[in-house]
């Protein structure tokens, strides 16, 4: 059923055309509203286990090695206290004493001399020939809950060790278990992964030894972070790099196991009590908080745990963090070692039963709480509503401006043209914007001192904000002679299409980032559109330019992006400007390269050129259509005005002469 404009009354259409800005604003606000509406229980789906093979692991448990875990705890605590340097050797020896092959991997990073050691061991499964593997990761040191300091991950290490010792003797294992004790936080894991997959050529910032032993394709994994021996709830972290998420089945398995052991599971430390009727407003607020935090984490592209690195290599993984928050009012005692042991055992046995790699259930979702989620079919709608004005406006511009029934139709080479478009000028304009942003993008990564960086930032802010003025002064004549309102609208039309395409692509890769980008881009288009009224309303010019430069400044956006990222990784840690600049420099030069976070690239190569193009277009000095028409009427020679080139004019006239002949030919 084709969409037909003539179905709607003419008056309604006219009304819409007159109130476009209002309609688009309504769309924008509705989109935001719809996103907030996702927190309401009507949109949620309840989670379920889609993969049947996962369920046997949930039934019973037969490993009980709490005593050994406790002994290992004592041993490891002493080791961390007395000889920190030898911790890798001791872990290696522990694994080998229990008949598990263990290896060390040396790696260095950041072009520095000092190197660190990863330790890993492989428990070979008796049932198969090392074709598949499960990964258990425990970092040597982990961030505490407030992200202020690093603490040895004693409980995580001992839990992993005892679990491996116990499972070594189980004849049912059909996948190898790899235990990895990585040092230097995410860098160790990255180095190990690079060696495991032999992906050295990506960049040379991390240098790592090759691994002496492998264990087939890694199906899934689990990372354990327990900074303190006592913990009252488990914070489950699943947000990966660049908006990647672990399979929902994996998370559901873990939550089901934890529920069975009555371990409260939180997301971002938010716990929702689903058993009792929680206060509706409380429930909504908690849902909104979880949703928003997930949105921000995913859009920055950084992971909230070690698992992000592994997700990048298609190893389904989440992080369990032992948090100190008491969730029930009656909860006084910490979670027992036995409980967490059962969770681990059930998890490994579930994965062990898996016949295929995780492929069922959801890869695109927002978790609202541990039993409810929003699927892609629901959360893509708000983004669609927000982006709809882009396409609507493009269509309106196309239909009203380029399909008017006016007499100014000129026939050139079989194509209908209503007005001349100076493509060259537009191309130049857009290329200027792209090149400027690309230069900014590349230079930004090469600063080794704060002064240089701040000077650079100042210079580029100035370039960004002042370049239209310079441009206008220099080429004022070409601008005013060539450009009319049609050209301005056509340029707007192209930019709208470009923006819509950008957001559509982004929404498929990283929905959260696309959502935030659309929130940023839509007002820019509105402001550029409003700037058309600068003739009628004097102050509009200044208001739009002020908004462009002050509120929507892309450098400000970069600062906000960095602040958000750092806060999510390390907590709020800004003390003074110098330190802030140093950290920022390091972040942009090293950190994002290590982990292939491309949010910065999207901001610099996607948003920045668009901002620049739209900002510059507000300075265009085009002639309004009415004046053009008057001119034409006076001169009575519209082609001359539209085609200053004489040759072109000649061809048009020729065509006009031979038009009858051509028609006859066609008829024949």
């Amino acid at each position, binding site marked *: 059923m*084709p969409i037909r404009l003539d179905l709607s009354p003419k008056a309604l259409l006219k009304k819409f055309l007159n109130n476009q800005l209002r309609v688009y604003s309504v769309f924008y606000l509705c989109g935001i509203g719809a996103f907030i509406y996702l927190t309401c229980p009507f949109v949620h789906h309840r989670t379920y286990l889609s993969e049947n093979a996962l369920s046997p692991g949930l039934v019973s448990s037969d490993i009980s090695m709490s005593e050994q875990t406790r002994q290992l705890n004592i041993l490891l605590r002493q080791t961390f206290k007395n000889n920190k340097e030898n911790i890798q050797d001791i872990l290696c020896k522990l694994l080998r004493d229990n008949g598990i092959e263990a290896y060390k991997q040396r790696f260095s990073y950041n072009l520095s001399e000092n190197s660190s050691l990863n330790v890993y061991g492989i428990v070979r499964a008796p049932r198969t020939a090392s074709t598949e593997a499960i990964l258990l990761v425990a970092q040597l040191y982990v961030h505490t809950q407030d992200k202020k300091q690093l603490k040895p991950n004693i409980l995580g290490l001992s839990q992993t060790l005892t679990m491996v010792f116990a499972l070594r003797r189980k004849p049912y294992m059909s996948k190898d278990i790899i235990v990895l004790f990585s040092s230097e936080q995410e860098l160790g894991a990255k180095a190990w992964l690079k060696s495991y997959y032999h992906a050295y050529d990506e960049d040379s910032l991390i240098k790592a030894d090759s691994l002496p032993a492998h264990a087939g394709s890694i199906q899934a994994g689990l990372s354990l972070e327990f900074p303190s021996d006592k913990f009252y709830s488990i914070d489950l972290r699943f947000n990966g790099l660049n908006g990647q998420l672990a399979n929902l089945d994996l998370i559901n398995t873990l939550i089901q196991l934890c529920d069975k052991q009555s371990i409260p599971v939180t997301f971002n430390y938010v716990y929702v009590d689903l058993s009792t009727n929680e206060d509706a407003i409380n429930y909504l607020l908690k849902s909104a908080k979880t949703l928003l935090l997930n949105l921000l984490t995913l859009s920055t592209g950084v992971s909230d745990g070690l698992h992000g690195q592994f997700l990048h290599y*298609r190893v389904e993984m989440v992080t369990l963090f032992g948090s100190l928050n008491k969730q029930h009012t009656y909860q006084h005692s910490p979670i027992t070692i036995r409980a967490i042991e059962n969770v681990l055992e059930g998890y490994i046995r579930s994965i062990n039963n898996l016949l295929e790699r995780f492929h069922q259930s959801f890869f695109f979702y927002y978790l609202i709480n541990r039993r409810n989620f929003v699927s892609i079919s629901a959360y893509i709608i708000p983004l669609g509503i927000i982006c709809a004005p882009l396409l609507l406006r493009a269509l309106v511009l196309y239909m009203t401006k380029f399909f008017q029934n006016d007499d100014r139709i000129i026939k050139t080479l079989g194509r209908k043209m209503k007005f001349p478009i100076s493509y060259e000028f537009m191309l130049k304009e857009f290329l200027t914007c792209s090149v400027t942003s690309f230069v900014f993008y590349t230079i930004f990564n090469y600063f080794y001192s704060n002064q240089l960086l701040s000077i650079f930032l100042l210079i580029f802010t100035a370039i960004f904000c002042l370049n239209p003025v310079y441009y206008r002064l220099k080429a004022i004549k070409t601008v005013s002679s060539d450009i009319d309102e049609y050209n301005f609208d056509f340029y707007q039309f192209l930019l709208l299409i470009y923006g819509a395409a950008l957001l559509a692509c982004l929404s498929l890769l990283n929905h959260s980032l696309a959502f935030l980008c659309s929130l940023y881009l839509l007002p820019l288009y509105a402001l550029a559109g409003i700037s058309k009224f600068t003739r009628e309303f004097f102050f509009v010019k200044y208001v739009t330019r002020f908004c462009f430069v002050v509120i929507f400044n892309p450098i400000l956006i970069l600062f906000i992006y960095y602040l958000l990222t750092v806060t999510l990784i390390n907590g709020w840690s800004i003390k003074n400007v110098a330190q802030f600049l140093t950290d920022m420099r390091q972040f942009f030069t090293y950190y994002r390269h290590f982990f292939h976070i491309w949010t910065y690239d999207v901001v610099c190569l996607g948003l920045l050129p668009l901002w620049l193009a739209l900002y510059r277009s507000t300075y265009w000095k085009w002639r309004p259509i009415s004046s053009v028409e008057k001119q034409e009427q006076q001169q009575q020679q519209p082609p001359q005005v539209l085609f200053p080139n004489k040759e072109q004019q000649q061809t048009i006239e020729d065509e006009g002469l031979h038009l009858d002949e051509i028609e006859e030919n066609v008829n024949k």
Partner: protein
Amino acid sequence: MLKRISDTCFEVSAHLAVDDLWKSFVHELGGLLCASLNFVDTSTSSSSPKYSFRPQSTVTSQSQEFNNSNLRYAVLPREIVCTENLTPWKKFLPCNTMKGLSSLLVNSPKLYDINYHSLRMDFRQICADSNCLSSRLELSLGLGVVVDTFAKPGQNEWSLRSIFGQNMNGACPLSDITNVYIDLELSKLYHMTLSPLADYTIESNGRTLVVYDVNNMKQTSHGTFSLSCKHDRPSTDYWLLAENNKENNTLPYLYVHRYTTGYGARNGGIKTQIYNTPDTTTTLLYFEQIPWYFRVFLHTLKIIMENGTNIKPDRLSYIPGKDRERPYQIEMFITIPADVPSVEISFEYEMTFLKWNEFPPDPNHGFYIPAAVISTILPKLDKQQPILRQLQSFSLNESLLLSSNTESFSSSLFVRIYSESLLVNLPTPDFSMPFNVICLGCTAVALAFGGFHNLTTKQFSYVEKKEKKNFRQYLQLLWAKFLAFKQYLNAKTNRNALRQDLHRQHQHVE
């Protein structure tokens, strides 16, 4: 353990092609061993190695030249050897599981609790006498088992009963030899004490072998033979020793580690590391058969020694695969210099998109790349394992176990090592909801496209409404149309008449 490997050499007969023979052989063998060997496709998963496999029987030694096109090699890496294969395998034995060594295999679930096991079956023709004028058939069956006796903490003893769940039920009366050999090489480290004393020992190159002759009724009490051993716990020094001193006794002479490289669903690679411990130059033969859906690039083939220098293979035979027809086949001779501890062979491949009906029922499980085969002749060394040597003897003049003379130990040893088989995920479509996504998606796109196409290509304008006609007007219109048609016909006939008149006039004038 996982691999089902069969290599067979055929004599070319006049009526049947090799492929047909191979197909029927594979099917029969599959039926005999209760294995799904019938899944071995004659063309896509079989190959004819040029050098790696040669007949070790009298069949082709009679004909002068060996033709590798009569040889077939196939692997089924997806299947795991299990009880269903063990049961038919056991039935080949003369006493089944009633008597002899095979009586240990009665409790087969217990057998599958161990860490590693493999089944082997060789069937060949050998010489009946030293002149090789007549021949006879030899069927050799082998079961390899690896048991980790250190698995349980605090346990430092093992017995036949603890491993197999059963003691040996005497010797099979049909057998000539029923011997149990124990290599005491590890006794230097762990101080093993065996519980019944051995019948005799064999000393060879400083290595001690203990032999129990079960046929000799001295060892059996009430017709059963039991064996137990006590030993020390291994210390971690052992691991450190193994790590620091590569020439340690415990390491094998030649071992292989193979793994996939790369991630994602487009490109990948295979790396094979061959570790060579003896201080002599080793020449080895590397063979790899890769399914057609991994497109191997030969230009990426690299052989790198540990010191970083590239070496070239002495001889390379490469048969590129064809989609859905033939696997890739790489075969090469490599010489490892004496002082190089390891060599790394690597090459890259590209993954193909399979057709939707070519995927197995579990597409997300992944696709196997069969094991590489490394064949070499180990040089004569002092520290060789006599048992291995004896079992691997491919002498045509004598059967394997019947020759217990220690002199055959001194000959050089041919070994064939199978590496790890690999599991790789090909790009897989989401099979769970093709109709939802494809059908609905396409419909939505088509609907939207129609509308947008109309909007952007057509010009819309308001048309005045036509007045409704009543029946009478309709009739009038019809009448008018009829009249018009009549007139048209008249005009046409008149014109024809006119034309004829003109024509006539013309003729008349002429």
